């Protein structure tokens, strides 16, 4: 990891030297070893603060979203999942490809700094596992799908594709009532902090439907109705767009298994549209299946 850090720093420094970028997006170290945060290096001096370590899990594509209205030329370090986020932003015309210099990092799988923070914080009675983060255990794309330069050797996906939707299939086996009960119970704990939305790179709407007040589409009560409405609408919007970075589930302060909803949609969209998954490759002009209309779109569910 230190080696990768050195390489990223060197590339960033070179890009600043060559005058090719105005800012480089990556991660920096926090106060403690497990703490990391999104970082924007604005000059060659800042470059030394850039790190890549076992906790640099935050999706840098989400940092990129903060730059959609500016004009800087941006260098950006991406892991596999981050790179899929970048593709999503390119597809959604949130940022132009020629503004970016993408440094790809084949990702060995990382740990969750939030789990470490919780263990450290002293509120947990039982220590949480601090191995690879759940999202990394389930990762299907550790290697960047788009880059200008690659750092380090390619990695192999960690989970055989066959078992990928095991949990989803379990839920599908439930009766409709059982499934409703499951989700009602699960979503009733939501505190509506919107962290799952804020951390989501696929959530790139300028005004989110949940912030619309005129009309107000979704109520803000903490009730089963409004909570379900929030999650179902949010996740339905993710259909064909979720890049499976798992950040929503990772950051949820009440541990809602949000990726279950996303995976169900990934599975269904895959089946219905028979297409590649969200953000797996960048083809200019390409749109996810639910962003375009085709006369032969599947409609058996109507």
């Amino acid at each position: 990891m230190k080696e990768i850090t050195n390489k990223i720093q060197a590339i960033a420094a070179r890009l600043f030297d060559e005058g090719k970028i105005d800012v480089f997006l990556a991660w920096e170290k926090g106060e403690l070893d497990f703490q990391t945060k999104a970082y924007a290096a604005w000059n060659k001096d800042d470059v030394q603060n850039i790190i890549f370590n076992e906790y640099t899990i935050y999706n840098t594509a989400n940092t990129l979203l903060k730059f959609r209205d500016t004009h800087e030329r941006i260098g950006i370090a991406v892991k596999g999942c981050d790179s899929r986020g970048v593709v999503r932003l390119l597809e959604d015309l949130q940022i132009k490809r020629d503004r970016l210099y993408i440094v790809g990092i084949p990702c060995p799988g990382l740990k969750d700094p939030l789990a470490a923070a919780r263990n450290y914080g002293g509120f947990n009675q039982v220590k949480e596992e601090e191995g690879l983060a759940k999202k990394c255990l389930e990762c299907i794309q550790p290697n960047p799908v788009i880059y200008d330069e690659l750092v380090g050797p390619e990695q192999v996906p960690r989970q055989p594709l066959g078992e990928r939707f095991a949990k989803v299939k379990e839920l599908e086996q439930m009766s409709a009532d059982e499934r409703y009960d499951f989700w009602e119970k699960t979503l009733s704990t939501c505190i509506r902090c919107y962290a799952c939305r804020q951390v989501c790179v696929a959530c790139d709407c300028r005004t989110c439907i949940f912030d619309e007040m005129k009309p107000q589409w979704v109520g803000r009560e903490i009730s089963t109705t409004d909570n379900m409405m929030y999650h179902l609408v949010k996740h339905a919007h993710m259909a064909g767009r979720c890049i499976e970075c798992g950040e929503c589930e990772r950051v949820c302060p009440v541990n809602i298994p949000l990726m279950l909803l996303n995976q169900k949609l990934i599975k269904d969209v895959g089946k219905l549209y028979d297409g590649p998954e969200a953000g797996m490759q960048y083809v200019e002009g390409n749109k996810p299946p639910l962003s375009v209309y085709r006369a032969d779109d599947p409609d058996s569910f109507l």
Partner: protein
Amino acid sequence: MSVQDNKGVIIEQPLVPTIVETIDIIDRTPDVKSFLVRNTDGSGVPFQVAPGQCAMISLPVGEAMISCTWQEEQEYLEFAIKRVGLLTDELHQIEVGQKIGVRGPYGNGFPVEACKGKDMVFIAGGIGLAPLRSFIKYCFKNRADYGKITILYGSRSQADLCFKEELFDLWPKEPNTEVFVTIDNAEPDWNGHVGFVPAYLEELNPSSAGAIAVVCGPPIMIKFVLQSLEKMGYSDDQVITTLEMRMKCGIGKCGRCNIGSEFICLDGPVYYLRQLRDLPPEW
């Protein structure tokens, strides 16, 4: 800054509105209407409102903080409301007789006592005349207490001028009073002044000696008028303006209308410029 108390009036349930009846609705401009309300049993007004104070107006769909443009004795409260949002859209569709919710009065109001004996210069833009009107009418009602009154009002177009009858007929007839009206762009049937308020103000140049300027309007107008007043020799103690922030509770609890440690709904909305200089530049 001192905390503005609720004038000693105890309100048991400050967040629960009183239901009143709309007794008249007057079109002021294409998107501004005046709503006159009083108690449903016809017994007067739900509460006493001082010039510059506000009230929270509600229909089932929502609530909004609106400045009270006039309290006519115990007859009615008048709110001049521009159609801009969810509630105001809905309000513009009601008819006379409709019940609406009001709670208040909120805010500190204009320092009518401290201004006694001064020449008053009122400067307003657009719907900003609504709050000032309560002070202007108060001055006329207590005419002897105030010196010369100068009113400068501007809006985008003729059609957007609020309170035309008062502007053109009633107020100019008051003793020792001058009314100036301007619109942003020339129009074929307009013989009056054309141009923005700050420039017109500097042209008129009302003396700052013994005067108080009261300013209300869109933020951009306020910004430039304050600069003009400074140029014209008005000190920070001679300039009063009102601030606007989004409000929900009206009683300094819900958090959103703060500028620094001030809650505009409770401690404002009326401030001397000197007070504003102490606040973070978020206004």
